[in-house]
């Protein structure tokens, strides 16, 4: 019963962690995952989210076994 959480780029550096697992118990949305993983309540406006490699909004649902990622705006190309 776990959700894998990843942080990328400046977010990874600020948090000094790239990957962690959180207990999936009681987690319903991406927001819930953020709260459990970071011990803070609100996903900052400039943080983007994905679930299982697909972009997702904070209110969208998660389930046991998902991979949830948080990252800043992309700057490739």
């Amino acid at each position: 019963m776990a959700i894998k959480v990843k942080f990328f780029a400046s977010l990874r550096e600020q948090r000094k962690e790239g990957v962690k697992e959180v207990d999936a118990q009681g987690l319903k949305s991406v927001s819930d995952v953020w709260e459990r993983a970071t011990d803070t309540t609100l996903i900052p406006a400039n943080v983007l989210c994905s679930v299982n490699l697909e972009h997702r909004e904070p209110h969208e649902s998660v389930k046991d076994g998902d991979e949830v990622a948080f990252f800043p705006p992309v700057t490739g190309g």
Partner: protein
Amino acid sequence: MNVQIKAESFNPADAITQFEAGITGGSFGATASFVGTMRDFNEGDTVCGMHLEHYPGMTEKQLQEVIDDAKAQWDIIDALIVHRVGDIKPGEPIVLTAVWSAHRAAAFDACRFLMEALKSRATFWKKETLTGGSERWVEKNTPG
């Protein structure tokens, strides 16, 4: 492979030549390509180096979706995206997009679409190293 993520410096001309060898000769009349190269200046500062981070698995999937979108929208024969990750020096190529088609309009349009779409959609993040050694994450992409 339509999508190639490279951890080492690559040669765009070679990448195009190799990919094109897999396309039937005489079938395409047009090839449009774009190479983004690391410059030694950005926002008024001299830049000595850059680190490019990506989200392995997600980034490749997004780039393939960008190519699929181009194929759905234009009559093209094939398309290629090559993108660097890791430590990059000024003058090194960062990204290559290339499109092969029968006629030139589709190649031009789709090649530009690939670049704009990957810049806005694909999970890459750039960190620049300035003279003196200070580092900064690039906050937003340059407009097209």
